């Protein structure tokens, strides 16, 4: 392997840092405005069609006195949180997701869609630029590429055990991503985030006329909508784990490194 560029001495290069924060903002707005859009019809189906008379595999139920989430045949009481909650003025509201989780916090499908589509454009363009930049500056090949020895089950199992002991990196090379870190970053950047773009496009009737294979690929428009929602949930889960691991591994130093670049403690060989 030839190294074509001078090895970077910063922990996170500029394109990585820029994209990280733009993407974080986009995801926050997209999740919250997406929950507003979901509130207009809080039911999820599989297949091409699905409306109130069809079977929903997941649905939010609301009444004046209670709120619940139904997953398959399992009913979970969510009164006070989802389906029946109090707004900032203490009034009971029966939209699915509460105002503190949506953009805007008042009910407006049109405004939710405006926020969503605007940030969807920034999100998609910045992800594209980040991936291209990371191939050019070899961030993907050098930092995310999984080597043959890392694929060994014993190595992966060893890293899982290290995580439980809260040992995330070799002490002398803490800038090198561990295998679980690589799996999750690759999974998010190359699978989960593009999946959100494509399932989003698949829901548009005009896109469906232009690119019918896209909707077919996901098994229909309502399946694409369900996958879009599950994808959102996976992004939220990633964020929670990302935050826990950040807090456990030196939050200030790492956050500052993602802002200012940081230093590689040991120069690359």
């Amino acid at each position: 392997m030839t190294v074509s560029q001078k090895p970077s001495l910063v922990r996170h290069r500029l394109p990585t840092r820029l994209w990280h924060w733009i993407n974080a903002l986009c995801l926050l707005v997209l999740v919250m405005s997406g929950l507003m859009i979901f509130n207009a019809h809080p039911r999820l189906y599989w297949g091409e069609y699905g409306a109130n008379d069809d079977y929903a595999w997941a649905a939010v139920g609301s009444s004046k006195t209670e709120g619940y989430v139904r997953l398959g045949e399992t009913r979970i009481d969510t009164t006070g949180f989802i389906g029946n909650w109090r707004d900032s003025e203490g009034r009971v509201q029966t939209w699915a997701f509460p105002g503190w989780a949506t953009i805007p916090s008042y009910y407006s499908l049109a405004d939710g869609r405006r926020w969503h589509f605007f940030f969807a454009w920034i999100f998609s363009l910045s992800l594209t630029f980040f991936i291209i930049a990371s191939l050019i500056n070899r961030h993907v090949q050098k930092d995310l590429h999984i080597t043959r020895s890392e694929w060994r089950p014993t190595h992966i199992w060893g890293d899982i055990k290290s995580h439980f002991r809260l040992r995330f990196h070799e002490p002398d090379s803490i800038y090198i991503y561990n295998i679980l870190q690589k799996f999750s970053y690759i999974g998010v950047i190359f699978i989960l985030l593009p999946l959100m773009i494509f399932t989003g496009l698949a829901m548009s009737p005009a896109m469906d006329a232009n690119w019918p294979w896209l909707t077919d690929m996901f098994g229909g428009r309502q399946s694409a909508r369900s996958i879009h929602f599950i994808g959102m949930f996976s992004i939220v889960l990633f964020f929670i784990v990302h935050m826990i691991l950040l807090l456990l591994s030196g939050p200030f130093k790492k956050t500052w490194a993602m802002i200012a670049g940081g230093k590689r403690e040991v120069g690359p060989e």
Partner: protein
Amino acid sequence: MIEAKKASLIGRRTLLTSGAVGLAGLLSGCDALSRNQSFQNILRSAEDANFLVHRALGDRMKLASEYSIADLSPKFRPNGTRDPGTPDYRSSAAQGFSDWQLRLTGLFAKPQNFSLSALQSMPQRTQITRHDCVEGWSAIGQWTGVPLKILLDLAQLHRSARFLVFHCADRLGGRPYYESIDLLDAFHPQTILAHQLNGEALPIENGAPLRLRVERQLGYKHAKYVTGIEAVATLVNIGDGKGGYWEDVANYEWYAGV
């Protein structure tokens, strides 16, 4: 060691608190921004981008996906007005809409009226398509009706016409429902005035006796209970000027391809 631990604990607490404060600030900030007209215009630019990209993607006359009888929704969900309920509408419905007139007005060389039976005796198109509501649900139905292009050719659409406005018999919250499309969608082969759903006369809850099908856009564009088609050069003089009932009332986007 203990000192370090304490410091990092405080750090975590500060981080969590500032996160919560930040979220609250973001929320009220977003609401204020949502109500700010210039910010709304910035957000709206993405909708213009959607429209431009959709129209730039290959064949502008591309058909929406069509399905088979086996794919039909067991029940086609009605939405919006379920029954216009006015005396005129009631009496027309009682006669099987035999007195229904579709009036073509505005920028036509030969403005004229068509009765329901006249429309039914014209060449028909039957299509099984998926209806996508802006709210998120979908239903598949089979529609039969007269292609809009036939009517526009008969009435000889004027060159200065840019939009077609569909006037409807139903009112929502006291306002008449209306919608509008541009000429690209007007001449699209799947744009029809449907009088049948799933092989039966169109039910009242789905827009009897005539509803627009404009298959590459969301459900609110598909005007029901259509009484008139007005050809215009601009939409500013119709309703509140945004091109449709929901556009005027709730800020829905005029182009509903997303």
